[in-house]
């Protein structure tokens, strides 16, 4: 049809009038965008910098990242008003990783990550209200309020958590890949960890086995340059995390560029299915401190943080892309952000209203097969329960 031959510029005249109900552009015509930063590779040929995408996809990136950003900011204020307790590790700044990865894979590919898991959960199809409910310890939460910030899961989307012990998720992720290979599935596992975890011995143990047994495991180092308060130059003799796999190929990626992330993950999936494990180092940045109890300013300057925000912010980059390619107008994007903000506010309000778990939930989900076991409360003569 003639329409397909028209340039994007003239398409503007044929676009339907934007309404509040239009969520994403349905235009899936392939567009090719060059990544700003080249890939660096180790023991493999880097993928092309030309990424195939579409208006629809880039708009989805924008909306999804805006939603993730707003969720984390809302979590920040909820934590400060003491509605969220304990640990709360925020992901704002790193959103491009979550959305770029999802664009390259299916919901049958598995993801496992650390405690900085809210946005990964959302990326896997998790609902905002389930996330906020879990953070506030409500029954409606994705783990019924029993997990907390660090233990979000969504098994039906092959999201296996949510892990509090630094580095533990790496062998676990290799185990998920093992199962995929055992079951002869054509799917892969992305196991995400930080620059701090990159020095863990169990990483090298698991990587060795993954390489020996050709497991479809993709190790993704989210290098946000700080392991809690320790900068990479103080914790790693070799901070070239994509090369630390030694005999395992690696790729260094601009982790603030959703399209580069997509390209790298697509490349990694193809690689892992054919050749076994590969390491992706995502160069990214977190605006918040390590957790809500860390101001994030004692080990880095405010100028550094604001500098990254100005030059590399993942959402701003996608906004620029959308405007430059005339996929959306400034007003449309602002409206989208307003919608997202309302979505998040509504979810927070809903979560605030939802009840806390029943006291009997203290004793549920201990075992799948409880076999009439007894369990006790603090005063065992007062609270003694036979597990169902």
């Amino acid at each position: 049809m003639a329409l397909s031959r028209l340039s994007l510029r003239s398409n503007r005249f044929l676009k339907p009038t934007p309404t509040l109900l239009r969520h994403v552009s349905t235009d899936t015509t392939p567009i090719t965008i060059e990544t700003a930063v080249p890939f660096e590779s180790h023991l493999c040929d880097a993928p092309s910098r030309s990424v195939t995408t579409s208006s629809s996809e880039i708009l989805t990136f924008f909306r999804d990242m805006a939603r993730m950003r707003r969720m984390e900011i809302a979590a920040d204020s909820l934590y400060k008003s003491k509605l969220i307790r304990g640990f709360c590790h925020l992901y704002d700044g790193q959103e491009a990783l979550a959305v770029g990865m999802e664009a390259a894979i299916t919901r049958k590919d598995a993801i496992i990550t650390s405690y900085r898991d809210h946005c990964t959960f959302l990326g896997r199809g998790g609902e905002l209200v389930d996330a906020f409910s879990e953070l506030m310890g409500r029954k409606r939460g994705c783990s019924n309020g029993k997990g907390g910030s660090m233990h979000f899961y969504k098994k039906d989307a092959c999201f296996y958590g949510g892990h509090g012990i630094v580095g533990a998720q790496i062998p676990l992720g290799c185990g998920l890949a093992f199962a995929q290979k055992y079951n002869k599935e054509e799917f892969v596992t992305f196991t995400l960890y930080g620059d701090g975890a990159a020095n863990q011995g169990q990483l090298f143990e698991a990587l060795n086995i993954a390489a020996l047994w050709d497991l479809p495991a993709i190790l993704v180092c989210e290098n946000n340059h700080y392991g809690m308060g320790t900068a990479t130059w103080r914790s790693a003799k070799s901070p070239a995390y994509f090369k630390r796999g030694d005999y395992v190929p690696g790729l260094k990626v601009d982790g603030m560029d959703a399209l580069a992330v997509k390209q790298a993950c697509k490349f990694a999936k193809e690689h892992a299915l054919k050749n076994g494990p590969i390491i992706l180092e995502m160069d990214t940045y977190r605006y918040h401190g390590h957790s809500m109890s860390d101001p994030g300013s004692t080990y880095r300057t405010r100028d550094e943080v604001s500098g990254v925000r100005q030059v590399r912010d993942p959402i701003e980059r996608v906004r620029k892309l959308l405007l430059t390619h005339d996929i959306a107008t400034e007003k449309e994007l602002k409206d989208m952000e307003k919608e997202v903000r309302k979505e998040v506010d509504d979810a927070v309000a809903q979560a605030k209203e939802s009840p806390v778990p029943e006291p009997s939930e203290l004793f549920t989900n201990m075992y799948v097969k409880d076999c009439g076991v007894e369990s006790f409360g603090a005063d065992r003569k007062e609270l003694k329960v036979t597990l169902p």
Partner: protein
Amino acid sequence: MWGIVRQRAVDGGFSASSLRRTRSALVSARSYAAGSKEMTVRDALNSAIDEEMSADPKVFVMGEEVGQYQGAYKITKGLLEKYGPERVYDTPITEAGFTGIGVGAAYAGLKPVVEFMTFNFSMQAIDHIINSAAKSNYMSAGQINVPIVFRGPNGAAAGVGAQHSQCYAAWYASVPGLKVLAPYSAEDARGLLKAAIRDPDPVVFLENELLYGESFPISEEALDSSFCLPIGKAKIEREGKDVTIITFSKMVGFALKAAEKLAEEGISAEVINLRSIRPLDRATINASVRKTSRLVTVEEGFPQHGVCAEICASVVEESFSYLDAPVERIAGADVPMPYAANLERLALPQVEDIVRAAKRACFRSK
């Protein structure tokens, strides 16, 4: 049993060789009926793993030397040949790595049987056993269950020194979300391991190296491939009325010997084989003590905060008014395991220790 004989006759027709076969089958059938079949704990464990692997393709074995070497203690002998390298995996010496991989595989629905060459090495992987396996079902509110078995020899062997002799029953059994089993006899080994492999929850299966070679009578029922023992139920190995002796694993044998010695002196001891450390069969424990009024608990491991401490606490809490004597604990000495044979003997419970404690509970002098 007669059915087997009949079948052989039908298969072979009435040729001379088949008659000979039938006759020898009859002979063995007769001895079968007369005595009982015996099986070593090693063969019991091997047959259990074999049968479960045969029944469920999701079950696989992983550990150091489990494949080509046939198992460091030969428990997995023949499995690699029978099932191939896609069901039996030799791992490098990296417990943290391969245990985590096993747990991850269990997250995805496979059923790993992870062998620790001894449970002393499980400490390198203990984070995965506790934080990745035991707690997952709870933290995920039932989304992620972990149908994994961690098995291997536990406790003291003979002369292997301090780093290779620790008993981990108390440590693992204190963790909610785990099931912890400790077989004694061949029947225990078969029934409990099959139950463990079928169980959808993480099970720590504590074997004993010195029991592997011991033979026990085994019933027809226990040899059946569907045989399973319930998890969480203790077994009364010997009934008695004067004092209850409760223990698990190798110490069950010692307790039975002690009961024989006590019987010679007119003390009737009831010996309970826990089989399951978690869940602990408090009902059987307390029912027995309510019957005898005296308790002796025995374990090989370190005395402080041990399994015996939990049993004693349970009895004191629930059956206080039934006790006619203070509760007794016989445990390993409160020292790292020494090497010298005489010191090692002093560091572990002996039959005479159990006898002495039982007599104390009966207010009898030596």
